[in-house]
């Protein structure tokens, strides 16, 4: 039984990864799971300098999911390289660095600093809804997408994944723009913008009023978008959005995703990643699937 998948020349032992921003750099979850089991750890967004993020409250629960407006709080790329890469390299898993910035220059600075670093791939975050500059402002305009992707691609010495925003009318347009800009792979979806109001306090729950929605409730939307993008571009696609278990993961693979990421489900069940891997293997045994790649994109 073969669970390995290949993304841009990088072989993952299985298609299951972590969605950026839900898993830190793995330290917290290493108390609950064996990180060696994961296909890859996609780390929390890294900027060229430390970011403090948005004021609390940053979290709101919604039916079947949650909203966040963390705003990419992170200790910066220098701290990341010194502390998190050595930590993650203790484990036999791939390291994918999520790169964030307020401007093209900031994205480029991070990628430059990561040249030669012992990581496997980069993921360009042009889809965070919780920052006022950069983030989703770049990721929803195909012209900007192509511009920032090509600027970053020139500096990158690792395969470049571009993470797309679902907050667009037609996600295949930004997907194609990323492809034209030189992306090596795509990942989707980032969170859907959403809101919650506390009717007793008569105020939005989140300090920033609007945040990004994630969790099981967004899965059908994410799956539809992954399906559409897989048919629109020739790049490998990593699917995410509400994936909580093996059944969810297999849906994304059948829709065309080469890999899948577990995000919010980590918060609900700290062993969600390995439970998903176990479930995929169980499915493959039960239904005589020799190679996980046989299932990819079987939905016409």
């Amino acid at each position, binding site marked *: 039984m073969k669970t390995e998948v290949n993304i841009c020349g990088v072989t993952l032992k299985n298609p299951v990864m972590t969605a950026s921003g*839900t898993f830190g750099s793995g330290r*917290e979850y290493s108390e609950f799971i064996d990180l060696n089991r994961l296909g890859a750890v996609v780390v929390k967004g890294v900027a060229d300098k430390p970011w403090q993020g948005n004021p*609390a409250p940053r*979290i709101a*629960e919604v039916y*079947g999911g949650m909203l966040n407006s963390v705003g990419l709080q992170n200790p910066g790329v220098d701290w990341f390289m010194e502390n998190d890469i050595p930590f993650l390299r203790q484990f036999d898993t791939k390291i994918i660095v999520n790169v964030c910035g307020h401007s093209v220059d900031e994205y480029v600075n991070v990628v430059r600093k990561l040249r030669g670093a012992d990581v496997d791939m980069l993921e360009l975050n042009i889809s965070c809804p919780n920052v006022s500059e950069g983030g989703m402002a770049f990721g929803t305009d195909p012209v900007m997408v192509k511009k920032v992707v090509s600027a970053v691609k020139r500096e990158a010495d690792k395969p470049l994944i571009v993470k797309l925003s679902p907050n667009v009318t037609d996600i295949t347009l930004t997907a194609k723009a990323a492809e034209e800009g030189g992306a090596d792979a795509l990942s989707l979806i980032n969170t859907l913008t959403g809101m919650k109001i506390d009717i007793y306090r008569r105020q939005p729950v989140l300090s920033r009023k609007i945040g990004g929605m994630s969790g099981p409730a967004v899965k059908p939307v994410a799956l539809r978008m992954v399906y559409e993008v897989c048919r629109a571009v020739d790049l490998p696609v990593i699917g995410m959005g509400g994936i909580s278990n093996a059944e969810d993961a297999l849906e994304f693979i059948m829709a065309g995703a080469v890999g899948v990421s577990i995000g919010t489900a980590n*918060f609900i069940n700290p*062993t969600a990643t390995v439970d998903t891997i176990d479930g995929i293997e169980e499915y493959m045994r039960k239904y005589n699937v020799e190679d996980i790649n046989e299932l990819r994109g079987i939905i016409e």
Partner: protein
Amino acid sequence: MKTVENASVVSMANLTDDVYDITIHCPEIASWAKAGQFVELYPDNGANLLARPISICGMDAEKGDIRLVFRVVGKGTELFSRLGTGDKIRVLGPCGNGFNLKDGSAVLVGGGIGVPPLLETCRQLKGDKTVVLGFRDKSSVILCDEFKALGARVYIATDDGSLGFKGNVVELMKSEGITGDMIYSCGPKIMLEALSDYAEERGIACQVSLEERMACGIGACVGCVVKIKDGDGWTHKKVCKDGPVFDSREVIW
């Protein structure tokens, strides 16, 4: 160490209209838990997905039980309030760092549903203990007799004066001139801020247990931040992992 256990409910009681007292069997968590830490309880109803942080009111490592006293404030806690003996509840913990217990005279200050974590803290403190508890009114008073049974001097303040001092805990402390070597506190932010000023004016060290909306409870989501002084500036620290207990002088209110 932290883990997830499928705990069974040992006992369940109603303390006031909306405050519940539940003991659950989760041996690993009970053996690791410290005073001032909290656990995450999962509603597991398919709609409310995030765990609710609940402070630990007591633990019995031998029996493998922990005691939680919580108030119904929303859908998750409402669901927990309907648990009965023998029911199962998924629990993650123990979370956070708890209080740093020091020798010397202790002043424990709690407000409302911030009172429960102070009970275990009081049990473990060996020196002279003064306990100051604040509630809305007489009907919302909880755990008072249990603090007395631990040999603590107990003062009660109620907003409407229906029991004890009329006013808030800090006003009570001023009027009684309460002092000690270390304050251990948990309660509404506004109370903790006033208490922090009281402690600073009198040169008393003060630990405050804070709360904030969180998703994971283990430091990964970076949701539950508070502003903490850092050199000449400040930084966002996580209530769940860096806290929930902070030195009051570090907090930017």
